[in-house]
């Protein structure tokens, strides 16, 4: 296990290094000049040159890349050009908001998606199955931004204007406040629920046709016990793999939903960094997102090993 962990961490380091180099190259070759972005059209060529010099942008590419990697290894992701502050504390300050949204959204996805998927698989071809499939198709098809705006309009704005009924706030964020969290989490969860319904249904159908299920039924076990204690347990590895990917991905920023709900998370920070040609922040948010995905994948592998006795490292 220790050897497995060491190997995976080493691979994780190489993934981060590769992403850092590739992202750095991409931001370097983008034709936008961050110094020009700072001074605007008004600044003279001399102003641009001064800013470039101060930001170290006139150094040769390899010097810039080497410097960036060396500083990153020491935990220094540089200073944001636009926000005029250190990148790492800025990103970390956004993590609680994103984490709340990601965890709540995934929880809603699981609570809706998994039982619905199991139900659809258990009653394959029935009205339940068709309804679950239709619902998941609709939810997958609905753009998240549209659903978000509709939820704000129907559940927050209109009740307030028509009946002076403040069910939910019109966007915005308060730490650890369920009223602010509810609508963005529901938007994220609804889309996720559709994926989990499909995934669970497919995995359960595979399991329900296995010999061990037939054996369990033959020896007289009840449907519920066969479904949940036997078949469902074996659908967990693909579910957990997806869960890990989602968790890592969402912790790196839930871009559209954060934008629609004016939610100050990592995703919106990433969008702003691109809009402002804020290269240190672009690098920082990409590196942070990658880090989250690498760690989440590692954790998933460990959890799967814990719950599946067939898997040992």
């Amino acid at each position, binding site marked *: 296990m220790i050897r497995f962990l060491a190997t995976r961490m080493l691979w994780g380091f190489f993934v981060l290094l590769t992403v850092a180099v590739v992202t750095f190259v991409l931001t370097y070759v983008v034709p*936008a*000049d961050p110094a*020009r972005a*700072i*001074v*605007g*059209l*008004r*600044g*003279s*060529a001399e*102003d641009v040159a*001064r*800013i470039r010099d*101060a*930001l170290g942008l006139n150094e040769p590419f390899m010097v810039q890349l080497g410097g960036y990697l060396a500083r990153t290894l020491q935990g220094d992701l540089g*200073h944001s*050009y636009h*926000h*005029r*502050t*250190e990148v790492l504390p800025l990103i970390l*300050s*956004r993590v609680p908001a994103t984490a*709340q949204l990601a*965890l*709540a959204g*995934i*929880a809603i996805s699981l*609570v809706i998606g998994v039982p619905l998927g199991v139900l659809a698989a258990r009653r394959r071809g029935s009205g339940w199955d068709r309804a679950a499939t239709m619902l998941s198709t609709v939810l997958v098809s609905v753009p998240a931004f549209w659903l978000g*705006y509709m939820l704000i*309009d129907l559940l*927050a704005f209109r009740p*307030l*204007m028509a009946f*002076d009924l*403040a069910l939910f706030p*019109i*966007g*915005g*964020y*308060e730490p*650890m*406040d*369920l*009223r*602010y969290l509810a609508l963005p989490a529901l938007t994220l969860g609804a889309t996720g629920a559709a994926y989990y319904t499909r995934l669970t249904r497919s995995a359960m159908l595979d399991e329900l046709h296995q010999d061990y299920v037939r054996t369990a039924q033959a020896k007289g076990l009840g449907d519920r016990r066969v479904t*949940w204690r036997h078949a*469902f*347990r074996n659908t*967990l590895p693909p579910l*957990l793999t997806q869960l890990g990917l989602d968790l890592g991905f969402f912790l790196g920023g839930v871009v559209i939903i954060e934008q*629609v*709900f*004016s939610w*100050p998370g990592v995703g919106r920070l990433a969008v*702003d960094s691109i809009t402002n*040609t804020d290269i240190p922040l672009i690098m920082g948010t990409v590196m942070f997102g990658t880090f989250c995905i690498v760690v989440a994948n590692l954790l998933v592998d460990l*959890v799967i090993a*814990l719950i599946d006795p067939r898997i040992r490292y």
Partner: protein
Amino acid sequence: MRPSPRRITVPALLALILLLAACGAQDAASPSAAASEASGDGGTDESQPASGGGTVSIGFEGDIASLDPSQGYDYISWPAERLIFETLVTYGGSTELVPQLSTEMPTVSDDGLTYTFALHEGVSFVMPDGTVHREMTADDVVFSLNRLLSPNLTPAPSPVAGAFYTLIEGGQAVVDGEADEATGLVAVDDYTVEITITNPDLTFLNILAMPFASVVPADLATDDTEAFSETPVGTGPYLLESRTIGESATFVLNPHYWGDPPANAGVEFRVGIDANTAVQQVEANQLDIMGDPIPSGMVTSLRDNPDYDDRIFVFQQVAVTYLSMDTTPPDDGPLGNVLVRQAMNHAIDKDNILQLLRGRGTVAHCIFPTELPGFNPDCMPYDYDPDRAQELMDEAGVDGFSTTLYTDPSEDSSAIAQAIQQDLAVIGIEIEIVTQEFDVLLGTITTPHEAPLVLIGWFQDFPDPSDFYDPILSCATAVEGGANVSWYCNEDNDALAAEAKGLQDVDQRLAMYQELEQRVMEDAPWVPIYFPATDTFISDRLTNFDPHPVWFVDLAKYGVSG
């Protein structure tokens, strides 16, 4: 027995979320925390003077870039900086300059080079916690301008020190790192400052009114601009109470403010707010002012609502959107022919373009916007006349050509570019439209002759016609990295501009700029398209709102009712 994994994962995750969320739910205010903040009821410090009503809130999609006045250069940072800092002179309710930290407008030497300012006595720098730091003196004024010029500011020098402030004698040497202090900045005594500039230029006072020239305390404002932005100390009517990047910044009244108290008890900047959400928050009186324009998709429905007649403000910006033409193409191409450029001026139907933009602005016939001192309503050298345009093309001996138009990908720019494409096709000019993200576009168009045609806008830095000639039409800026993207250079015009700049007689000066405008239009480096207007939406409870012609918002003047 090992518990089933499902018993651990899903319910535990849910429980964790609900527990965390429930901890904060009890703090939720009614009808919403945001509304409570906006109402100002109990939302402000008890130690504040009770002038005016509650807190005025303004929302932006973007964020305040910096609260260090040497750095912030955008429409969000400036109104925030102006709450904390003050300048020697500023604008009153109009484009007219009035004294601020100076007791009266400065005396100017006969040669127009030396400005002497008498400072108010008893003006204090006040710390964010409300304690008085010390009195402001002339040394602070001198320090502030030297700091602005300094190349040692970290992480980067001021973005526009070179563009505006090297007019101060010895300023260039400071910018270049050859001197620590500009020779033209002198503290005569504690309350008198003398500033000498290199050339007679009345716009120097406009430059001093820009927030860059705010007075900061010499002993607190170090070279570290990030640190000063976090703890800004000025002489202005407000103090920074708190700021969370990406969320909000709250300003409370300065209890030791020397001037007239503001009309409200505080200001809250809510940043990172989606524009559609901001509209709904304003409708529900949870936000007082939309800092961004109303999203185009919501304009019609809001304007059709009679309840909002007195809550939607449309106001003309001091700006011009124009089609710039490369007047000196390297291949001696047709755009270098003035007759072709004049033909293009006749060929474009600007009324049609304005209709496409739902009437948000005024057709531009010349360079200076309608709200700019020096605007000439009689300047209309080229009417829409495709036949005349074709005649000019024939006269030029040009039987059509193909070229490329560069612009940004915004909805308005795309609509205008397509209309121009159709209009110019009538006289045989085929245009390929290339859209680039704005920061990329800036690089393209400031590279000599890279972009034959450019559709772009110019917004005032200060309300003076020189700001619509020097940076974008003079020979000095028709160089790589300059903003004269038509690469237009007429030395006779430059001489006229220099003469106009130094004149003390305002009427004579403006008349000279009008002559300059006519001359430039004869050379036709641009097709002026329109002077854009913008709009904003305010809450029902905001009082005294009136868009400012320079600052857009003058937050200290607005109150809230109810």
